[in-house]
């Protein structure tokens, strides 16, 4: 009558759809938290969840209920020790009656609802601003690519993986070992029997021979039945094991103008641009090295913290950064061993005449060894409306445009908001073949 069911192996994640709805509901807060942690985190540890804190008010589920105070209430409490009927007790100062609730031990306020955003959810929200095509999102959010690789043979498998050669070889070996009579032997005996049977009035010897042959054929047939041509024991299947695709190493150069004209907004956009390329590279390459080169009128290699957060004063010479990149690359990252990617962000200002040098650096050195060189010019929202035409722009822009026409691995773009960043990588993502459109 009682029925037991083991539910432990049921599919997990029953509450995932509810969770998704919940996150959708507090999108604004989640986005804030994601933005904050994009700003705070390094490019390399972008792939982790984050804690989101939501004011309880925005999650309230209202209903008609009694207020905590007012009116006359009467209740029964347990554990009386000294009271008698008629005793009066002063109200506790909190007014709520009884001991007030104490704060949570870890200091989280009761007013906030805190929860952890998982890695996937984090990336989802991060990608949302960037307006990536869905296929690209999937390619980036997915983990390492796995390919099935041959890994010997196995005795079980799907019929499609049946290894016919091996199976037949084993069957033959078994047939020989167990002396299974071949078709030819049996056929020969049958022919002899047939010939004898055709003899009109056979003599005694022939008759004995017929009986012997018949017995022999019978025995051999029985033997053949016991030792089948193909036995389930012989079956061999090709076995495949998923193995991560072997990936090479890549180095990514982040080049940024850090002169005073690059404010927090510009740097934030630049960071998203670098993060996107980094995410892409980590999917394709086993190790990705990052090199940060900042420049004013002088360029230097720095660590990430300095790169994004410290300010320099001085003029702007873009070519110095390219020279520095060339130096670092030739010292540490030989093109024969490394895949080289570069991402450059700037507001487009450059010292007069320097843009020509940039063009030379790019065309004579860097673009020959780079897989991809992406350049974004970060402009204000207001400028974006004026600078509609790609054919006009600063001297640097014009110089880079000439480069872009000649080199397919060079991409450039004006960026006013996070949504503009993706198209600069469009070719890069499309190259993988599985991404058909941008």
């Amino acid at each position, binding site marked *: 009558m009682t029925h*037991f069911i083991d539910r432990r192996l049921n599919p997990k994640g029953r509450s995932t759809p509810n969770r998704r709805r919940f996150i*959708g509901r507090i999108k604004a807060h989640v986005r804030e938290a994601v933005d904050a942690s994009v700003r705070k985190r390094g490019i390399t540890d972008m792939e982790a969840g984050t804690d989101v804190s939501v004011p309880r008010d925005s999650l309230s589920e209202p209903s008609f209920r009694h207020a905590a105070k007012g009116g006359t209430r*009467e209740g*029964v409490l347990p554990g009386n020790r000294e009271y008698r009927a008629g005793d009066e007790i002063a109200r506790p100062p909190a007014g709520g009656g009884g001991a007030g609730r104490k704060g949570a031990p870890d200091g989280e306020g009761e007013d906030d609802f805190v929860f952890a955003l998982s890695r996937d959810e984090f990336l989802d929200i991060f990608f949302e601003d960037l307006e990536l095509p869905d296929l690209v999102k999937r390619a980036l959010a997915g983990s390492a690519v796995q390919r099935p690789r041959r890994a010997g043979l196995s005795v079980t498998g799907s019929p499609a993986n049946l290894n016919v050669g091996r199976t037949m070889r084993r069957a033959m070996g078994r047939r020989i070992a167990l002396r299974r009579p071949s078709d030819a032997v049996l056929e020969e005996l049958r022919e002899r029997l047939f010939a004898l049977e055709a003899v009109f009035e056979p003599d005694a010897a022939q008759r004995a021979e017929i009986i012997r042959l018949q017995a022999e054929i019978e025995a051999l047939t029985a033997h053949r039945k016991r030792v089948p041509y193909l036995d389930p024991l012989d079956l061999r299947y090709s076995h495949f094991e998923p193995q991560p695709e072997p990936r090479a190493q890549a180095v990514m150069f982040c080049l940024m103008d850090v002169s005073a004209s690059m404010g927090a907004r510009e740097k934030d956009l630049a960071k998203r641009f670098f993060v996107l390329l980094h995410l892409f590279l980590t999917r394709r390459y086993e190790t990705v090295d990052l090199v940060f080169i900042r420049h004013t009128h002088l360029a230097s290699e720095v660590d990430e913290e300095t790169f994004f957060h410290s300010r320099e004063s001085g003029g702007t010479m873009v070519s110095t950064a390219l020279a520095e990149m060339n130096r670092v690359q030739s010292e540490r990252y030989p093109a024969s061993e490394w895949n080289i990617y570069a991402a450059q962000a700037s507001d487009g200002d450059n010292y007069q005449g320097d843009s020509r040098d940039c063009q030379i650096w790019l065309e004579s050195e860097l673009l020959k060894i780079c897989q991809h060189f992406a350049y974004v010019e970060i402009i204000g929202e207001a400028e974006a409306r004026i600078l509609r035409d790609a054919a006009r722009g600063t001297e640097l822009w014009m110089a880079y445009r000439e480069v872009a026409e000649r080199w397919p691995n060079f991409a450039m773009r004006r960026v006013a908001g996070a949504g503009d960043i993706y198209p600069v990588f469009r070719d890069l993502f499309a190259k993988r073949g599985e991404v058909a459109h941008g």
Partner: protein
Amino acid sequence: MAELLFDGPDWDFDTLRRTTEAIEQIAREDLGLDVYPNQIEIISTEQMLDAYSATGMPLMYRHWSFGKQFIHHERLYSKGAQGLAYEIVINSDPCICYCLEENTMPMQALVIAHAAFGHNHFFKSNHLFRQWTDARGILDYLDYARNFLSQCEERHGPARVEHTLDAAHALMNASVFRHRRPAQPSLRAEAERAERRIEEDERAAHYLWSRIEAEHRPQDHETGATQRRHALGLPEENLIYFLERHSPVLEPWQRQVLRIVRNLAQYFYPQRQTQVMNEGCACFVHFHILNKLHEQGRIGDGAMLEILHSHSSVLFQPGYDHPGYSGINPYALGFAMMRDVQRICETPEAEDREWFPAIAGCGDWRGVLKDAWANYRDESFIQQFLSPKVMRDLRLFALRDAEKEEAMKVTAIHDAGGYHALRDTLARSYDLSNRAPDIEVVDADLAGDRVLRLRHVLRNEVPLDPRERDATLACLRELWGYEVEIDEMVG
């Protein structure tokens, strides 16, 4: 001596089956319980958290608030601030009982006796559950509700469905029939009825009549406010029911969504009225059965100690000034009262004979308790069966906190002069109509300004929480489509 049912903490399905059979034998033959067939499901902690978030139901439609619940419980659990329930039991036929895989074998025995027989019997026999819930159909209904809502999401967009559900959830507690259960025609029956009505109207239409002078027609503008209210079935205590029928702005699918929420509210209503009894019954049953098994030598001493340990920690009642105090523990009160009924039936004292002349010394505590489980709810059970001894044991006292008075006042304690007052006060505090605000729809002039008027009848001058009230009224406005007003009336 009989053979042990199990030994050690590990369990497997054979042991579970054997133990359940032994428990069932005592439940049926000794206690004479009547239960739905059991379906015991072993689940993992994550699944238990899942079940928590959907109000314990195995199937539930999707809504963000369940996600919030899940995250809340998961966080508490992973911080170690909250343990998980050992079981969840569902009022359905067959009765589904979730047991946590991490329970040790003695705990599984406890949980099975508690939920699969104690709660199960209560669900099957208590009049409130029999009258108001449909144990056989609830799982199918939930399945239907879930599919219906996901279809709605596809057709009308998740945002609109969520909006409607949010508003409906706000009214959920004010949307139960407390006294009557109107006929629940199915949608199809209702559609057929509407169709028949149209046919009748068509048949009754006489074009000649409409040509006749207006004076000869019966006067129908005398339809006054009273008649209008009567036509709308006002006053109406069930807010969602009223909106579902009469809201001028809802689409048919929204009415159906409201209906689903309302039906669920009604399904849970008996549980809210029988917490003490339900838990008391389950604790009494597991205590009796497991002691019996121990007496028979089928549960070892060590296992029994573990069972008693969790039994007593569940039944712990901290005093009002204890830091862990959070109201009267329904497990403790229910169990204490039921054990006391047993004592009164078997070995009554003079006081008991005076208080409970009908049952004192009758010896048939099984019959008395089964009758109580079947025919009472918390409020009436306490009114009828709370004995002076239990009041003394729990050292109960009644406290009045009136806004007008300077200080709180102890109105009664566990002494001869206070027993009656104490019992009345405790019973009243379990009366849902006292605990939940009394709000009903009193008027709506559909032909006029279309303002929906509600009335809140104040009890003991306890007001509504103003912020919650305003937020809930906003939800109501959403569903009604026009202005909504609420008056307060001293009841």
